[in-house]
């Protein structure tokens, strides 16, 4: 029986009711290109090269059919420009269009990274401008924009820490990286990739780093502590200065995972908390495209004692011009080609200058306000995992619906029927039935209210008609997907119905 559609649903009927693959639209003889008659002698390709297309069945479609196919596919997309996207730990804020206007300016778009420095002073000024803004916002001594993703920035920070310990003759001794049990999975992955052994540090009942466990784990084998602040629980670590002191006391370094920087912009500075280095996601916090629209920029900030190891070249402001400093004998070397993703610097600078020094604190203030508003409005139906003010995101638990057979995933899938992207589910791992909601500062109270109304309606439905949630989504071109089957029998190649599907 088809699911009934929620009355309050913000329904958007899809243009594409029954999507077909372009192969299924193929009709023999249809052609999408009109080639002019050749004025040179014709060569029999099959005779010279063999039949390259043997066994390959291309769809035969007209240009118009191709156009309709892909435009219709684009209508099935969901993004920040179609609706609210409260995916936790992802900072899906709106990226203003003016970013695209500046990134599209010919002077930025049509230059080459090998042009002489004195011919691209404007571009170097942009990179240097972003660097100076970020130094002031984070309180760090230096910034590099070379890493092209958040995890890439994490790994680069660990490489700097490794180089630092090696230069002090402690490279062989310091083999352990400590990571809280609430961390993003990329933290242990980056540490392992850099050759470190990972030890997990528990979180205490208030949601903070367990200081007793941390002290017990600290000794002179510790290379670094990787801590996310605010944590993935959406909570500011009140003992952060103490944490940094403890790690420094045994000679370790402290890395800040900056995924949650949106909670701090213009309000407080990680460089002042005692961190030795951190990564930033320009594609989250500083409004460059995110998620399929990339490329990303995982800029990193670092203190003076790590500066000589940073990736070369370092974009440096001289007396009369900005130049690329390659004279860095202790550098870990490049971590990406040229200077990172240059056009992301153009977008980030546009964003930073549009806000200006006076406006930037409003980013974190409204991000924190919005998350606390959602947390308060949903408190009765989905209580917070920790009952204290949250930062830019709130982590709620749906565990009370488990006895009704309703899981966090079911609530999220039903949310799709109300026209919203689901929040992050089942992360952080230490919260049962976690739903992690990050509204960002760019959403209005009206949007947050519509979202909260939908969540409250779904939780009511969970008690009255749990199957409606189990069968959700009901309004999309496909229903509930079998995620296990999709992982185990990944099927990405078109085969005619008569043939067996290909699994890999």
């Amino acid at each position, binding site marked *: 029986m088809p699911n009934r559609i929620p009355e309050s649903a913000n329904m958007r009927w899809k243009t594409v009711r029954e999507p077909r693959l372009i192969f299924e639209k193929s009709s023999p003889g249809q052609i999408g290109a009109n080639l002019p008659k050749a004025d040179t002698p014709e060569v029999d390709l099959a005779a010279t090269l063999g039949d390259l297309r043997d066994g390959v069945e291309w769809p035969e479609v007209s240009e118009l059919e191709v156009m309709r196919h892909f435009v219709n596919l684009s209508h099935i997309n969901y993004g920040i420009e179609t609706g609210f996207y409260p995916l936790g730990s992802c900072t899906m804020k709106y990226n203003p269009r003016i970013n695209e206007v500046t990134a599209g300016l010919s002077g930025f778009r049509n230059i080459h990274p090998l042009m002489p420095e004195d011919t691209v002073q404007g571009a170097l000024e942009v990179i240097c401008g972003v660097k100076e803004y970020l130094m002031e916002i984070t309180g760090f001594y230096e910034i590099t924009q070379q890493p092209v993703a958040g995890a890439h920035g994490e790994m680069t920070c660990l490489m700097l820490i490794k180089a630092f310990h090696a230069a002090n003759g402690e490279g062989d001794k310091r083999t352990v990286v400590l990571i809280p049990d609430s961390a993003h999975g990329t933290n242990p992955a980056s540490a392992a990739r850099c050759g470190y052994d990972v030890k997990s540090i528990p979180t205490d009942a208030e949601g903070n780093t367990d200081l007793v466990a941390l002290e017990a784990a600290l000794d002179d084998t510790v290379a670094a502590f990787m801590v996310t602040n605010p944590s993935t629980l959406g909570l500011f670590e009140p003992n952060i200065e103490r944490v940094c002191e403890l790690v420094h006391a045994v000679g370790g370094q402290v890395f800040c995972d900056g995924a949650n920087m949106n909670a701090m912009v213009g309000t407080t500075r990680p460089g002042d908390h005692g961190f030795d280095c951190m990564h930033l996601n320009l594609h989250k916090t500083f409004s460059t495209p995110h998620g399929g629209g990339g490329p990303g920029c995982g800029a990193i900030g670092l203190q003076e004692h790590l500066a000589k190891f940073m990736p070369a070249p370092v974009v440096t402001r001289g007396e009369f011009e900005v130049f690329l400093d390659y004279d860095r004998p202790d550098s870990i070397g490049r971590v990406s080609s040229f200077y990172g993703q240059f056009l992301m610097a153009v977008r980030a600078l546009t964003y930073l200058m549009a806000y200006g020094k006076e406006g930037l604190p409003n980013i974190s203030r409204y991000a924190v306000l919005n998350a606390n508003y959602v947390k308060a409005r949903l408190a009765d139906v989905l209580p917070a995992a920790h009952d204290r003010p949250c930062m830019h995101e709130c982590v709620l638990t749906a565990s009370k619906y488990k006895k009704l057979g309703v899981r966090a*995933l079911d609530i999220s899938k039903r949310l799709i029927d109300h026209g919203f992207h689901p929040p992050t*589910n*089942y992360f952080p*791992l230490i919260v*049962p039935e976690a739903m992690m909601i990050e509204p960002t500062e760019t959403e209005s109270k009206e949007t947050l209210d519509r979202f909260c109304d939908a969540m409250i309606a779904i939780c009511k439905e969970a008690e009255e008609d749990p199957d409606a949630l189990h069968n959700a989504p009901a309004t999309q071109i496909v229903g509930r997907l079998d*995620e*296990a089957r999709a*992982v*185990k029998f990944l099927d990405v190649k078109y085969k005619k119905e008569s043939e067996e599907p290909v699994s890999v």
Partner: protein
Amino acid sequence: MNVPADLKYTKSHEWVKIEGDVATIGITDHAQSELGDVVFVDLPEAGRAVALDETFGTVESVKTVSDLYAPLAGEVMEVNGDLATDSELVNSDPYAGGWMVKIKMSDPGQADALMSADAYSASLDD
């Protein structure tokens, strides 16, 4: 939640069945329910020595990847090859068809430190 009385349990949600000096190990009904549909189980080779609390494998579900911790020290005698193709056995039959490894215990006394079914059930209610 199904917690068979004749098995021993760990805080990290493994179950252990002791027969002589051989321990059969899997994950509990509660663990499979929390993980969701299991899509991949990574198990050690037979013959590998494992220490107490050492990570001996991983379980990947649609939600997350979890480590498996050795509740006892010893040598891996046999692993459940069926899980390579039928990982859903961990969900559908966690205490029988979904078993993971058999370990020949090097210190059977370690089994005394494991939880009883009653103690494990009580820990789930907390």
